[in-house]
């Protein structure tokens, strides 16, 4: 078998002659327009399928937890919401890597993503609630994007009431989404849709459950 010779470009072709004068060519940029994008005043459009925040069609989600299994950062936790038969994924943007594997794996196409990528908060505990959400409906997302068109997180503030376990999303256009989280994990929460006769007991058991269940699930 004949060996092919490696293609090597001669050194004399690559080596550049040193010069004192040539660096002065750099001065020409002084009179050209800078290529900066002045961010607060000018906008850049992200790519049409830029991987940003998630959207979730609550009607389509069947709670199969495929997204939770494929998530490389374990940022997805199934959440039981009052009034829904199946758990829905809750995405933690503190851990999410925006790989969007969960979107690819979703069998019903309930989980999607938008081009929104801006999310900044202060360091307070109630500000940081914003990083942990059950994604909202894609139609709502689209509507908000058309209204503001600045690619920010659609929710302004998330309020989590620890007593009643009620979550309120204050959207940017002033409307709110309110629901109640009954529990976390794949198994349905212990008192399933019992009348709210003993809310005091619920309060005591739930925070403990919230911490334990995800851990147990992760070990599996």
């Amino acid at each position, binding site marked *: 078998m004949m060996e092919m010779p490696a293609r090597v470009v001669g050194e004399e072709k690559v080596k550049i002659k040193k010069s004192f004068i040539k*660096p*002065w060519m*750099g*001065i020409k*940029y*002084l009179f*050209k327009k*800078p*290529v*900066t994008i*002045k961010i607060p005043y000018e906008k850049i459009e992200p790519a049409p399928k830029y991987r940003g925040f998630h959207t979730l069609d609550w009607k389509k989600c069947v709670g199969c937890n495929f997204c939770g299994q494929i998530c490389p950062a374990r940022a997805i936790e199934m959440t039981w919401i009052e009034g829904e038969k199946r758990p829905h994924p809750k995405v933690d943007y503190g851990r999410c890597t925006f790989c969007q594997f969960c979107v690819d794996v979703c069998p019903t196409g309930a989980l999607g993503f938008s081009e929104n990528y801006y999310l900044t908060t202060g360091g307070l505990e109630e500000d940081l609630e914003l990083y942990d959400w059950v994604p909202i409906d894609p139609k709502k997302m689209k509507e908000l994007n058309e209204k503001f068109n600045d690619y920010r997180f659609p929710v302004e503030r998330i309020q989590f009431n620890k007593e009643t376990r009620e979550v309120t999303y204050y959207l940017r256009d002033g409307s709110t989404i309110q629901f109640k989280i009954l529990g976390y994990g794949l198994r349905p929460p212990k008192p399933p849709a019992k009348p709210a006769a003993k809310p005091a007991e619920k309060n005591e058991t739930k925070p403990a459950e919230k911490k334990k269940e995800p851990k147990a699930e992760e070990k599996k």
Partner: protein
Amino acid sequence: MIEVNWKLILETIGILIYATFMGFIFMGIERKAMARIQRRVGPPLWQPIIDTLKLLGKKESVSHGFIYDFGPVFALGATIAALLFIPIANFQLFSTNADLIVVAYLLEVPMLGIMLGAMSSGNPYSAVGVQRGLLTMVAMQLPYGLALIALIQHWGTFKLNEIVALQQAHGWSITVPALLLALIVFDIVFQAFLGLEPFDIITAPAEISMGPMVEYGGKHAALLFTQHAVQLFAETAFFAVLFLGGASNLLELLIKQIVVLFIAIFVASIYPRFTIDQAAKFFWKWPTIIGIIAVLLTM
């Protein structure tokens, strides 16, 4: 009888305020022009003033003892002293028989002041910076001295105001071929004076973190910024007085200073940094040869 010369005091204060303000604006011009050469927009022109005010507003300022505090003050004092001997337009506040030599060496003292303070911080980075700074200073003395000798021999005087008067009578220094060579030498040394790019071995950003100034923060750093601003003004004015025929009013001086500054910025933004051994070799080779030729031509 001690008579207080109120006019002189007021003029001194006025010149100082003007020099500080314009020095900061020169620093701003430097940043802006460099940004434009790199195709950026750059900060606004008054950014160095904002920086200095912010540094002055810092709550804590670490000190390592008396000499550490004294260094920047000493540097600022020397720069101001140098400034007062330079004929700024029609104000020359102080004058001696040989003020060229006084100014030439007072302009080098600030570097010593900074190094004095930096050495007392005990930081190895400052120590490396000081070593490099002193070697640069030693290396640049020879061409610097030769350029000044050529100038003095041609005009036959040590007095700055006489040099200005002679230039206004017989044409600027740069029109004389021998002094044009001296100007080239002086301009190369000038780059090292200002701490600009081919010879910014002393501070060497990103190489030895910040050189002598690593430990300086807060109010000390604000003082060093102010010192740098005044020094920028004084050095560009000195250059304009020696080679560009001085000036009869502040606007003319300002234009000449900005021309000088822009040449320095251009050189700084296109050439990379020398290592310290290359710088020493360079200073003792080309500028020295050109300087000797200039001196021989003026004899």
